[in-house]
């Protein structure tokens, strides 16, 4: 304690105009607690702030003899606090400790205290400065709690994150399992259908052999029995085939092989195959189709299946009157209707017609029995094409099945062809070539020729291109007067030989038609992936070459 330097507060008294009494005022104006006490604990200074903090006045603090007893009611706490205060007094330099006191009103307060020795009015005194840090500590405590909570939350999030990662892994595992199951399922479907069909085929052949009298003569009664048996075997075979179709559609295993197909032509062709049955039932078939090509971007086999199902159904349930097929090309879709004057469907059954194994209005005996799957397959196929199908009917007043197919622009179709080609090439690690045949000054030519003539010329050229290709290829006629040929599995060398053949064939056509003066063609080709990495590059490259 002796070593501690004392500060001469008296010295500052010499400041002009500042009286000793004024010091009290200065202390009282301060926002920190200030006390000065002698070694006996008698306070000389006990400023307003200190009074506010503790709730005691200077007189009260001095009256009790030992102020520490007032603010440290717990003797143990008091002893500890005093020891700490003493300790810092021993150390050189400036020290601060924190201590919790009890104010007069009983509230606990945390004070930050620093004490130093001063020379006051010629006496060595303890000058102490107190700061009430209760709120600060409380805030800090709150802050710490918030921080802890945040940390807990962060920890929770981290755990959750890890959990999600685990879930994700689990999901991936499950996905793989599902994929495997999917494979198993689709293998199962094809195995089952194969396993079912083989004994069926053998049974059918056995019956056929007897019916064909390979094993000797048969009588009429035997033949009738065997015929019934055989037609039911055929029916069972159809059910198996259609079940397979439905399973494939439901499992998303059907990949449409879309082509530009003239639907009007497809229907006309189909109607021929129904002629015998129509004649047999003495029904009229009205074909209400515009006399022109109506191109749609569809899978021709699947669409044939749709028409066969719908016309077949109409035929089955119509005994007199007619069946009418209508086709209409609208701006954004192709609409098709198959209507009949047959039995019709009851209102309550209408919503169920596209369900599996729902059969309505079945006639006792007579006719080929259905499988109850045809319309479910039909709906599946139309929806795969991005279309919509619905039925309208009244019991006894015929049925009307309508469906619409979306129309695609040539640009969309071209992109589809191109992307399919590129995907296939990528999957099979093969190449794909693109040949672009552009008609020069196409817009000028379009003005010179009539639409009809230009259309005919373009179609002829498209036909020639198709005929000239010796390999599988897609040909797209673009509205900009470009004909694009997509050749799967074709390298640069093969592409240029195809290009030359096409050039020869088209030149010949133009010469024969006396068009070579007006129509000039430019040829170009590019090969994926050798010359271009994406569709845009490929087109650009082929146009330039």
């Amino acid at each position, binding site marked *: 304690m002796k070593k501690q330097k004392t500060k001469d507060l008296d010295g500052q008294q010499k400041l002009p105009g500042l009286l000793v009494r004024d010091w009290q005022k200065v202390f009282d104006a301060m926002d920190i607690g200030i006390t000065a006490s002698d070694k006996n604990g008698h306070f000389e200074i006990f400023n307003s702030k200190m009074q506010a903090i503790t709730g005691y006045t200077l007189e009260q603090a001095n009256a009790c003899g030992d102020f520490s007893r007032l603010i440290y009611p717990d003797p143990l706490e008091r002893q500890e606090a005093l020891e700490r205060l003493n300790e810092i007094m021993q150390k050189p330099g400036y020290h601060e400790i924190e201590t919790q006191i009890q104010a007069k009103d009983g509230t606990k307060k945390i004070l930050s205290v620093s004490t130093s020795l001063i020379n006051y009015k010629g006496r060595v005194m303890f000058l102490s400065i107190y700061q009430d840090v209760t709120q600060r500590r409380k805030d800090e405590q709150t802050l710490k709690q918030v921080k802890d909570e945040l940390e807990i939350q962060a920890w929770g999030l981290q755990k959750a994150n890890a959990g999600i990662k685990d879930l994700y892994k689990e999901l991936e595992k499950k996905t793989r399992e599902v994929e495997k199951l999917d494979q198993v399922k689709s293998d199962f479907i094809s195995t089952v259908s194969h396993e079912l069909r*083989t*004994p069926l*085929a*053998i049974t059918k*052949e056995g019956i056929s*052999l007897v019916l*064909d009298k390979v094993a000797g003569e048969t009588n009429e009664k035997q033949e009738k029995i065997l015929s019934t048996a055989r037609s039911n075997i055929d029916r069972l075979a159809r059910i198996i085939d259609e079940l397979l179709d439905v399973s494939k559609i439901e499992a998303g295993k059907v990949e449409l092989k879309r082509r530009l197909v003239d639907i009007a032509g497809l229907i006309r062709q189909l109607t021929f195959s129904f002629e015998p049955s129509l004649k047999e039932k003495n029904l009229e078939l009205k074909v209400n189709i515009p006399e022109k090509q109506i191109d749609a971007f569809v899978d021709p086999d699947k669409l044939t299946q749709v028409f066969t199902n719908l016309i077949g159904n109409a035929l089955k349930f119509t005994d007199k009157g007619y069946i009418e097929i209508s086709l209409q090309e609208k701006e954004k879709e192709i609409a098709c209707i198959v209507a009949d004057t047959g039995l019709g469907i009851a209102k309550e059954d209408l919503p169920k017609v596209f369900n599996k194994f729902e059969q309505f209005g079945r006639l006792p005996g007579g006719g080929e029995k259905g499988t109850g799957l045809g319309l479910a397959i039909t709906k599946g196929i139309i929806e795969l094409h991005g279309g919509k199908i619905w039925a309208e009917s009244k019991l006894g007043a015929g049925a009307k099945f309508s469906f619409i197919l979306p129309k695609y622009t040539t640009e969309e179709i071209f992109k589809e062809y191109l992307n399919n080609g590129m995907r296939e090439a990528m999957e099979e690690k093969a190449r794909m070539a693109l040949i672009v045949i552009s008609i020069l000054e196409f817009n000028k030519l379009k003005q010179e020729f009539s639409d009809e003539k230009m259309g005919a010329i373009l179609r002829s050229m498209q036909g020639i291109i198709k005929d000239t290709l010796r390999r599988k290829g897609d040909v797209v006629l673009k509205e900009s007067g470009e004909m694009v040929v997509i050749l799967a599995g074709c390298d640069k060398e093969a592409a240029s030989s195809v290009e030359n053949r096409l050039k020869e064939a088209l030149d010949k056509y133009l010469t024969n038609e006396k068009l070579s003066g007006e129509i000039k063609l430019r040829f170009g080709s590019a090969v994926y992936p050798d010359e271009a990495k994406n569709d845009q590059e490929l087109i650009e490259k082929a146009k330039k070459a």
Partner: protein
Amino acid sequence: MDKKKILVIDDEPDFLEMIKLRLEANNYEVLTALNGKEGLEKVQQEKPDVVLLDILMPELDGLSVLRRIRSYNKNLPVFIITAFSNEERFKLANKLHASGFIVKTSDLKQEVDNINSILNIAPQYKVKK
């Protein structure tokens, strides 16, 4: 005209029995083999004019049998017996240089008629290279 010698290779005995009757009714001399190995032996020994070959057989499958036949005889008409759909059949046709197909599940009378017409119309039938 001599009877044509036809060898049917299929692992299904019942099917063999049926198609044998059908082919005999069509004036063929019919030999049968129940597996690929036996079939290959009979191709060598009996020198059939036509072979009907099941694609799905345990052990030595139809594909391998055809490959071996083609390794020394490019011209023997070989018809593949299959239960596959059209499209897959065409893919196989390109791969295997087969002369044609018999769809097990369709009308065998018609299928045999098809074989007859292919063999009769083109007696010097050559397999496309």
